[in-house]
């Protein structure tokens, strides 16, 4: 609903009404206070993790000893953390790129074309999200074992592409559905080649959707522990490193890297929301 509509509804409230009619309620202060409290509780572990990245360094990072920038200044001090972090970033980028390409193609086909087995395809896309990660993990693990593939970086990337595809399809499909095919028709009418239509019209218009999908994919891949555990061999990703280290002590640098990724992601999401808001305002102005 647009702002104008909301404003119109707001005015509707002021018109005189029969006496005993109950007031239409959109929620009250109780719901507002409750929601703010829930949001704050959701933030507690995030704030905890960031705060403990500023702890005074010692053998363990489980008790608060005071504020210091030491861990941030010595961010590369623990070689294993750095290696695991770099590995996860690489896996995330490659898996996201591949999943975005495969998923976008499916999304376009789903919106634009008629084909048989549509229901079958919908189920095939739904199932990976409806399967517990531990089942997907042990399944891929046994498959690689049965066909004799050595587990490592490649098998992790293969697994991550798989569970990202469905999320890409859902996210990009909404964007394709909002795209007016007449714009592409116009391009074809003006003798643009299929490649030109794709790169100069379709792709730029789908880009916001693809970016959202890529962000989501990267977040899923970067943070995946359960599936990765079954297909990683001896490769250490950031989550598997934390899981193993949790038995002894997790170096504060792990908190630093996690905080860096978190803050970067928040900056990107905020920027995306602001661009979307600006776009909405522009559209509202142009639309009168």
């Amino acid at each position, binding site marked *: 609903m647009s702002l104008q509509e909301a404003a119109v509804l707001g005015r509707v409230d002021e018109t005189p009404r029969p006496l005993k009619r109950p007031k*239409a309620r959109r929620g009250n202060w109780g*719901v507002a206070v409750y929601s703010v409290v829930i949001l704050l509780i959701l933030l507690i572990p995030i704030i905890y993790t960031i705060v403990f990245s500023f702890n005074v360094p010692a053998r363990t990072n489980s008790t608060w000893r005071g504020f210091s920038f030491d861990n941030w200044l010595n961010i590369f001090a623990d070689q294993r953390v750095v290696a695991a972090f770099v590995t996860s970033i690489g896996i995330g980028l490659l898996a996201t790129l591949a999943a975005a390409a495969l998923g976008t*193609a499916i999304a376009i086909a789903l919106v634009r074309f008629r084909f048989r087995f549509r229901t079958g395809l919908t189920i095939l896309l739904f199932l990976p999200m409806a399967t517990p990660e531990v089942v997907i993990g042990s399944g891929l693990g046994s498959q690689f074992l049965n066909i004799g593939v050595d587990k490592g970086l490649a098998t992790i990337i293969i697994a991550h592409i*798989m569970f990202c595809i469905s999320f890409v399809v859902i996210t990009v499909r909404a964007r394709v559905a909002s795209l007016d095919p007449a714009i592409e028709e116009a391009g074809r009418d003006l003798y643009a080649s299929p490649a030109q239509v794709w790169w100069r019209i379709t792709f730029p218009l789908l880009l916001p959707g693809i970016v959202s999908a890529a962000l989501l994919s990267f977040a899923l891949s970067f943070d995946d522990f359960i599936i990765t555990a079954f297909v990683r061999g001896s490769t250490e990703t950031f989550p598997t490193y934390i*899981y193993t280290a949790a038995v002894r002590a997790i170096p504060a640098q792990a908190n630093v890297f996690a905080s860096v990724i*978190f803050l970067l992601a928040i900056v990107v*999401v905020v920027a995306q929301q602001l661009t979307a808001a600006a776009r909405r305002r522009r559209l509202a102005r142009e639309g009168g």
Partner: protein
Amino acid sequence: MAFGAFSNVDTPVVEAPRRRSRAALWLLLPGVVYLGATYLAPLVSLIVTSLKAPDLVNFDIGRYVYAFDIGNYATVLGQYWPIILRSFGYAALATVFALLISYPLAYFIGVGLRKYPLWQALALILVIAPFFMSFLLRTLAWKAIFADEGPVVHFLQGLNILGSNAHLNGTPFMVVFGLTYNFIPFMALPIYTSLERLDLRYLEAGADLYANPAATFWRVTLPLSLPGVVSGTLLVFIPATGDYVNASPQFLGSTQTAMVGNVISDTYFNLQNYPASAALSIVLMVLILIPVGIYLGLTKTEDLL
């Protein structure tokens, strides 16, 4: 499923006539083949593995030969049925709590904040913020906060709610708490997406027809947000049933709170009993798909995606 919250669609949907074309084949083929090889084939592989028998000729840990040993299923069901039951219990509790907590939150963001787009965007970012912080570190943060020497236990002991020797970590309460916390965004986002589209004139109409707010909620708001509730319930219940991080002794659980995921990973990694772990995975998958199928049938939500 209602993942619209991620997609930032701000222009109206244009329903274009769908064409038949060979292009569709080339668009679909790579992704479908990929999912076939990396999702469907592993399921087949799980079934094959679940029927394997120990290699009696060259006996070794983790060595199994192709067979048709249905006994693996009988063994895991007989041995682990209490744990399977417990997993479904914990997941069901976490789903109910996540729904009760998320609905008012999603309503507040989707309806209450509608006149304040900036606050609405901020609240949404706060809901998805946990996705960007390591799930394991967040769970360990709760472990520290609820530790025996931590603030929560001390506070509850001060109020005499907890005994001086009582723990929170390692109890079923903590596992359900952890699962609920972890999956709240997965519940809140789809419900928000449904409520965000809710036409407020329906609520006005309810009031015009002398329905009190409660009646309007039960007969108008809730039914209209049902698709979001269905998506959210599935997105929480399914992963929660298979989760093994929250219930593991290294995190919020103890050996007394083991869930089926803990057993699958234990039999796989520690015992290297791949047939047992595969049989349990198949059992879990079937046991999840049955209630999910019934639930989808009852709620009549055919639009899965």
